[in-house]
C-alpha cells in the first residue's frame, strides 16, 4: 500500500487521485482487502492504528446504525482503545478511524459510495503507512525493519497486520504491472527487429511480400533512434519508406506509442511532412497488413514463417517486459505523471557547459535526486528507456499531436524561397508550458535564478546576468520556454526600453536566439516587444541597430508580427539602415559596421517582405534603389538577404519594373554564377518572377544570363535551386530569341532528363519550359527524339493542378506534330487528357480542352478515337455550362474539332449541344466569340441544327459579332453565318439585323476570304428571298 500508493498511483497536482483505469483497479483491490480483512483476520482488524486515519466524509450521522453512540454533534463507536478514545469518531464532515475493523464497517455502511469514501481516505492520508504503523516502518520495503519492530514492540498482531498490508502492496503492484505490460509499446529494438525481418521477406523469392523497405536515414543515434533530434522529442523513433507490391509507397513514422503514416518523409532532412495522416497502429506489421492486402495475404499464406517471425518478436518482448516492469516502477518513483518520457530525458540534459562550470547549486540537488531514486534504471539499456505505459502517453497525446504541427526546428532558419510565402504562414498556436509537475530540467532552475537577478540587479549585475544567460544553449527549446515560463521575457523586453546600451545589447542577443521558437515569437509580439525593438532601430549605436534588425528578422516569421513592424513605422526605419557603401575595396571600421547594419536590415526586410503590404511599404520608403546598390556588394552574406528580398518582392508588378529599370538584372545575372547555391537560387527565382516581362527576357539574354541558367540544371541534388533555375528558363523561353539561344546549349535534352524523379516544384517549371519550346516545330522533333513524350504523358496521371495545366499545354503543343501525335495516341494520351476535363480546377479543364484540339486534329482516325472514349462527348457538352470564359472558349474550340466528324456531331447534337451554344452567343468576349462562332459553324452540318440555332435565337447575336474589332472573330463568324444562311429563316433574321450594312460600314482590313464568304452568304440570301 505504501509503494503502490505513493508511486504507482497517478496523482494530480492537487493531491487527488486521477480518474484513470489504473487508479480504479488500485482502489478496488484495496477495497476488497479492507472488506475481507474484518472477516479473515479479525484479530488484526481490531489492532489499533498508531494515528487515526482522518478524512472528510460524505456520510452523515444518520448513516450509522447500532454499535454507535449517535449524538447531535456526531457519532462515536462503542469500541474504544486503551486510552479510551473511540475507534471511530465522526464530527461531520471529518471522520477519524483507528482500526481496520472500523474502516471495514464504515465501508460497509457507505454502501454504493464506498469507492468514493476510500478514495477520499487515501487522498487525505498520503502517508497511510506511517500513520498506521509509525515511523519505524516508514521504509516498509526494508525487511530488516520488521525484526527491529518485533523486538521493540513485541506485538505480533501488529506485525501480522503489517505483513498483510505489505502483501497487499505487492499484489497491487503486480496487478498494475500486468496491466501495463498488456499495452506494451514499441521501442527502437523492436522496430529494428521488425524492419530486419521484413527485409528478409522482401528478398523472399519470386513473390516477395513487399517490394522494398528502408529507413529514411542510415544514421542511428546512440539511443537507437533515427529520427532527427527535434523529432525524437515527440517520441518518434524512425521513419520508413515501404513499397508494397500492390499499393502506392507508404511513408511510415514509428514512434514509441504507435506506428502511423506520415505525409511523406523521403529523405533524412525534411522540414515538413511529419504530421500523421492515418490511424495509428500498434506495430509495423499491423499497419502493413491493413494497408497492403497483398502483404496480409502473403503473411497468412506463410503462416509458419510468420509464426516464427512473431515468436521471434515475442521473445524479444519477453526479455524486455521484465525489464520494463522494473522500469515502470522506477519511472514512477521519479514521476507521478509523466507526459514526456524518453524524449523528456533527452531534452533535459543539462547544457554541458554548465556542467563543466559546476554551476549546480540548487539544480545540482535535483540532478542528484534522479540517480538516487532510479538506481536500477541506470543498469537498463536505452531500449527499455523508451518504454512507458501506454496510458501515460495517451493522456499526453493530444498535446503532442498539436505540438507536432507547430514545431519548427529551433534554430533552423527556414527563410524559405517559395514565392507566395503568405500561404506557408506558421499558424498561431496556443501556448504550451512546461508542465509544472514534471521533472523540470536543471536549466529551468538556473534560468529562474538568473531572471531573479535580472529583476533585482543594477546595470552591472544585469549585464553579467545576461552574459550568463547567453551561455545557455538558447537554441534548445527547454531553455527558450524556461525563460518565458519564469517571466524572463517580460524582463528582457523591459530592458529594451531603458537607456542602458549594454543591457539592450545583451537582451537583444538573447531575444535574437530564443525567437527562433514559434511560441517565443508570439509571446514577444504579445508583450509589445516588437514595438520596443522597432524603436531601437533609431538608436545611434550601430551594434544595437544591427541586433534589433536581426531580431526583427527572426521574429517576423508570422503575419501579425510583420503587420506590427509596419504599423510602428519599422519598414521605413529598416530601409534607412540600408544606407552604406557596400562595394568599396577597403572599408574603415566604421564603414564595416555600416555594412553589417545594412546586412541585418536586409535580413529583416527579407523576412518582412513576405507580406504584400510590406512590399509596398518597402518600395514607398525608397528601398528599391538602396537594395539595387547593395546588390553590387561582393559579399555573399549581404547578397543573399538582398536578393532574397528582391525575389520575394518580385511577385509585385511594380517591383518587376523597378528591378528592370534600376539595372538590377545585370547583377542578378552576374550572381547566377556565384559559388553559393542559395544565392544562385534566389537570383534564379528573382529572374523567374521578373522574366514574365519581355524586356527583362531580352536583358537576360543580352547580359549572357541564359548559359549560367542552363548550367544550373546540372545541380540535380539541390531541388530548390533546380526549381528556381527551371522556372527562370521557362519564363525566359517565352521569347523566341531566347529559345534559339537556349538550343545552343542543348537545353531540351537536359530538360527532358529532368522529367522523371523530380519533385513537383521542378516538374511544373520543366514542363512549362518544354511547352514554350514546343511552340517551335524543330523543338517538337527534338523532344520526341530525346524520348520526352512518354514521361510527359505519364505526368498526365498526376494531381498537382499547376503541373497538370503545364503538362496538358505541352502535350497539346507536341500534338501539333504528326509523329508526336502517333506516340501520344499509342500511349493513350488523349484519353488521359480527356479525363482531365473532369478535374475540378477550371484552369486544368481549359488547358486540357485546348490540348484536345490539336490531338483531335492530328490523330489518324480522330472520329473513331473520340467515339472510343465512353461518355467523353457528354462530358464535353456539359462543360458548356461552365461559368469560366476560358473553359467555354476552349470547349467551343474542341467542339469545333470534334464536330468535323459527322457521327460525333450527331452524338453531340443528341446531348443538346445546339441550345447550349446558342445560349452563349450573347457574350462580348472576343476570344469566346471566335471559338463559339467556329463551333456553331461546324455544328450546323447536322440535321436540322441550322434551324435549331435560328429558333434558339443564335443568329442575331452572331451578326453583331461582325462589329467586333478582332478580324479572327469576323472570319469564324462569317463561316458560321454562311452555314446558317443555308436556312431561309436565318437569312431573314440576318437581313433584319442588317448584315449588309454591317458589311458595308466595315472599314477594317477584312481579308479577302472573309469578304468573299460574306458576299457568298449575301448572294445566297438574295437568291432565296
Amino acid at each position, binding site marked *: 500500500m505504501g509503494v503502490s500508493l505513493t508511486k504507482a498511483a497517478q496523482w494530480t497536482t492537487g493531491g487527488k487521485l486521477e480518474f484513470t483505469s489504473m487508479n480504479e483497479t488500485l482502489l478496488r483491490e484495496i477495497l476488497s482487502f479492507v472488506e475481507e480483512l474484518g472477516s479473515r483476520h479479525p484479530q488484526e482488524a481490531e489492532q489499533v492504528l498508531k494515528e487515526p486515519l482522518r478524512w472528510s466524509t460524505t456520510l452523515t450521522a444518520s448513516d450509522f446504525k447500532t454499535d454507535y453512540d449517535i449524538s447531535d454533534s456526531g457519532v462515536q463507536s462503542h469500541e474504544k482503545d486503551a486510552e479510551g478514545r473511540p475507534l471511530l469518531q465522526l464530527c461531520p464532515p471529518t471522520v477519524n478511524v483507528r482500526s481496520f475493523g472500523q474502516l471495514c464497517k464504515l465501508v460497509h455502511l457507505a454502501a454504493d459510495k464506498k469507492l468514493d469514501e476510500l478514495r477520499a481516505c487515501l487522498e487525505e492520508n498520503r502517508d497511510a503507512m506511517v500513520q498506521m504503523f509509525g515511523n519505524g516502518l516508514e521504509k516498509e520495503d526494508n525487511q530488516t525493519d520488521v525484526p527491529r519492530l518485533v523486538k521493540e514492540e513485541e506485538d505480533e498482531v501488529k506485525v501480522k497486520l503489517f505483513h498483510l498490508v505489505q502483501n497487499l502492496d505487492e499484489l497491487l503492484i503486480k496487478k498494475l504491472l500486468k496491466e501495463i505490460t498488456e499495452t506494451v509499446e514499441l521501442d527502437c529494438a523492436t522496430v529494428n527487429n521488425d524492419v530486419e525481418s521484413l527485409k528478409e521477406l522482401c528478398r523472399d523469392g519470386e513473390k516477395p511480400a513487399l517490394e522494398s523497405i528502408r529507413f529514411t536515414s542510415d544514421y542511428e543515434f546512440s539511443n537507437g533512434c533515427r529520427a532527427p533530434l527535434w523529432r525524437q522529442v515527440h517520441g518518434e523513433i524512425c521513419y520508413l519508406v515501404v513499397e508494397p507490391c500492390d499499393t502506392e509507397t507508404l511513408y511510415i513514422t514509428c514512434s514509441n506509442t504507435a506506428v502511423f503514416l506520415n505525409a511523406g518523409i523521403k529523405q533524412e532532412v525534411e522540414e515538413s511532412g511529419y504530421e500523421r495522416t492515418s490511424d495509428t497502429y500498434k506495430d509495423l506489421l499491423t499497419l502493413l497488413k491493413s494497408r497492403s492486402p497483398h502483404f496480409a495475404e502473403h503473411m497468412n499464406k506463410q503462416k509458419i514463417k510468420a509464426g516464427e517471425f512473431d515468436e521471434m518478436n515475442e521473445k524479444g518482448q519477453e526479455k524486455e517486459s521484465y525489464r520494463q516492469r522494473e522500469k515502470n516502477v522506477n519511472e514512477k518513483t521519479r514521476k507521478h505523471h509523466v507526459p514526456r518520457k524518453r524524449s523528456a530525458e533527452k531534452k533535459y540534459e543539462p547544457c554541458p557547459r554548465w556542467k563543466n*562550470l559546476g554551476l549546480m547549486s540548487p539544480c545540482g540537488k535535483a540532478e542528484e535526486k534522479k540517480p538516487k531514486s532510479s538506481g536500477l534504471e541506470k543498469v537498463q539499456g536505452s531500449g527499455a528507456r523508451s518504454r512507458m505505459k501506454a496510458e501515460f502517453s495517451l493522456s499526453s497525446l493530444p498535446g503532442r499531436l498539436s505540438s507536432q504541427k507547430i514545431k519548427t526546428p529551433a534554430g533552423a532558419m527556414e527563410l524559405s524561397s517559395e514565392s507566395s510565402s503568405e500561404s506557408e504562414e506558421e499558424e498561431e498556436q496556443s501556448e504550451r508550458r512546461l508542465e509544472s509537475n514534471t521533472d523540470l530540467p536543471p536549466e529551468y532552475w538556473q534560468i529562474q535564478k538568473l531572471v531573479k537577478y535580472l529583476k*533585482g540587479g*543594477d546595470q*552591472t*549585475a544585469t549585464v*553579467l546576468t545576461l552574459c550568463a544567460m547567453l551561455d545557455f544553449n538558447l537554441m534548445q527549446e527547454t531553455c527558450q520556454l524556461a525563460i518565458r515560463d519564469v517571466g524572463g521575457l517580460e524582463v528582457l523586453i523591459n530592458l529594451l526600453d531603458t537607456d542602458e546600451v549594454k543591457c539592450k545589447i545583451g537582451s537583444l*542577443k538573447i531575444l535574437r536566439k530564443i525567437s527562433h521558437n514559434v511560441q517565443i515569437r508570439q509571446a514577444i509580439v504579445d508583450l509589445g516587444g516588437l514595438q520596443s525593438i522597432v524603436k531601437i532601430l533609431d538608436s*545611434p549605436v550601430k551594434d544595437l541597430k544591427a541586433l534589433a534588425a536581426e531580431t526583427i528578422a527572426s521574429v517576423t516569421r508570422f503575419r501579425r508580427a510583420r503587420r506590427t513592424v509596419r504599423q510602428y513605422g519599422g519598414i521605413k526605419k529598416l530601409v534607412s539602415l540600408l544606407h552604406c557603401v557596400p562595394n568599396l575595396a577597403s572599408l574603415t571600421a566604421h564603414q564595416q559596421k555600416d555594412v553589417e547594419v545594412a546586412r541585418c536590415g536586409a535580413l529583416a526586410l527579407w523576412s518582412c517582405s513576405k507580406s504584400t503590404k510590406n512590399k509596398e511599404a518597402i518600395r514607398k520608403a525608397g528601398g528599391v534603389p538602396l537594395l539595387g546598390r547593395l546588390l553590387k556588394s561582393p559579399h555573399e552574406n549581404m547578397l543573399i538577404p538582398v536578393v532574397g528580398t528582391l525575389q520575394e518582392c518580385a511577385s509585385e508588378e511594380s517591383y518587376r519594373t523597378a528591378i528592370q529599370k534600376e539595372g538590377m538584372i545585370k547583377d542578378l545575372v552576374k550572381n547566377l554564377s556565384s559559388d553559393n547555391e542559395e544565392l544562385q537560387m534566389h537570383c534564379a527565382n528573382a529572374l523567374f518572377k521578373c522574366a514574365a516581362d519581355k524586356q527583362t527576357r531580352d536583358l537576360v539574354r543580352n547580359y549572357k544570363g541564359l548559359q549560367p541558367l542552363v548550367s544550373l540544371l546540372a545541380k540535380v541534388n539541390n531541388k530548390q535551386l533546380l526549381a528556381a533555375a527551371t522556372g527562370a528558363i521557362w519564363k525566359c523561353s517565352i521569347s523566341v530569341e531566347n529559345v534559339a539561344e537556349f538550343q545552343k546549349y542543348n537545353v531540351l535534352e537536359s530538360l527532358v532528363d529532368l522529367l522523371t524523379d523530380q519533385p513537383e516544384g521542378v516538374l511544373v517549371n520543366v514542363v512549362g519550359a518544354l511547352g514554350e519550346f514546343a511552340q517551335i516545330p524543330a523543338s517538337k522533333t527534338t523532344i520526341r527524339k530525346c524520348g520526352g513524350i512518354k514521361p510527359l504523358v505519364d505526368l498526365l496521371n498526376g494531381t498537382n493542378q499547376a503541373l497538370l495545366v503545364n503538362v496538358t499545354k505541352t502535350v497539346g503543343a507536341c500534338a501539333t506534330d504528326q509523329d508526336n501525335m502517333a506516340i501520344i495516341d499509342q500511349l493513350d494520351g488523349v484519353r488521359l487528357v480527356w479525363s482531365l476535363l473532369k478535374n475540378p480546377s477550371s484552369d486544368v479543364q481549359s488547358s486540357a480542352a485546348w490540348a484536345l484540339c490539336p490531338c483531335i486534329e492530328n490523330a489518324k482516325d480522330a472520329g473513331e478515337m473520340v467515339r472510343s472514349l465512353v461518355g467523353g462527348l457528354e462530358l464535353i457538352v456539359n462543360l458548356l455550362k461552365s461559368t469560366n470564359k476560358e473553359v467555354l472558349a476552349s470547349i467551343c474550340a474542341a467542339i469545333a474539332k470534334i464536330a468535323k466528324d459527322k457521327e460525333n456531331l450527331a452524338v453531340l447534337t443528341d446531348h443538346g449541344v445546339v441550345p447550349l451554344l446558342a445560349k452563349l452567343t450573347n457574350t462580348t468576349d472576343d476570344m469566346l466569340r471566335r471559338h463559339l462562332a467556329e463551333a456553331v459553324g461546324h455544328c450546323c452540318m447536322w440535321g436540322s441544327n441550322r434551324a435549331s440555332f435560328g429558333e434558339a435565337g443564335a443568329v442575331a447575336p452572331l451578326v453583331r459579332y461582325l462589329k467586333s474589332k478582332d478580324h479572327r472573330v469576323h472570319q469564324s463568324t462569317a463561316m458560321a453565318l454562311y452555314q446558317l444562311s443555308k436556312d431561309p429563316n436565318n437569312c431573314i433574321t440576318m437581313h433584319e439585323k442588317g448584315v449588309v450594312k454591317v458589311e458595308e460600314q466595315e472599314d477594317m482590313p477584312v481579308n479577302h476570304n472573309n469578304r468573299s464568304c460574306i458576299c457568298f452568304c449575301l448572294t445566297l440570301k438574295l437568291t432565296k428571298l
Partner: protein
Amino acid sequence: MAYNKRDMSLFNASSCHGNGVFTSPVEWRSIESHIVCFFFFLIKSEMSSMNRKIIHTLAESISKQVDHFSKTEVECLIREFNLLLGEPVSTGRTVSGLDKERFRSILHNNFGLTDDMIMDLVFRTFDKDNDSFVSVKEWIEGLSIFLRGTLEEKIKYCFQVYDLNGDHYISREEMFHMLKNSLIRQPTEEDPDEGIKDLVEITLKRMDHDHDGRLSFADFEKAVKDENLLLEAFGTCLPDIMSADAFELRVFQEPAEL
C-alpha cells in the same frame, strides 16, 4: 611558468601604457616643467600670444605620444583641462593637476558615471604616477583610451580599474567588493549576500579560463573578446557613446576662446 610570463607582460603593459610612451625619465621632467611654466603664465597674463605658443608646443609634444588625438585636438583638450582646473588653489605651490574630487565631478557631469567607488578607481587608473593628481598629460593619455581606445586598450584599462589591489589579478573578493551593491538584497533571505556571491561565482566560472579561482589579464582579455559585453563587467568605467560624442563635439568643435 607560462603564468609568470603573462604576468610580466601585463606588468610591462601597464607600466608604460600601451604605446611605450616614455623613452626616458628626463623627457618626462621636461614636460612637467613645461606645464609648470604654463600655469605660471596663465596666472599672470590672461590669453597672450605667448600662452598660445606654449599650449601649441605642449600639444605638439603630447600628440606625438598619444595615438588617438590630432595635435589640434590635443590643444583643445589642454584648454579644456585648464578650464576645468580653474583657479589654482590659494597660495604656495601651484597644483599640478586635477584632484580626486574635481575629477569625480568631471566624470560624473561629462560622462555620466555614477558609482563613487568606480570613479575613484578610474581616477586611480588615470593617475599613473600615483601623486593624487591627474596631470595634463595623464588627462590626455587617459582620455585617449577613455574616448577612442581600441578594444585591446580598453580591456587593459578596465582590467586596471578592476584590479583593486594592483596585484594583476581580479580576485573573488575584489569582484564581490565591486558587485556588492549591484543586487537588491532580499531581507527575507538568510544570507542577503547570497545572490551576489552566486553572481560572482557564475561570472568567475565563466571568465576564469585557467581555473585558478581568480581572473588574470589573459582570462579577462579572452572573456571580453568572446563576449564584448563583459568589458565593463564589474561596473561602468567607460563613457557611453552618446556622452562621449557629446563631449568630443563640445570640446573639439568649439573654437579656442580662451
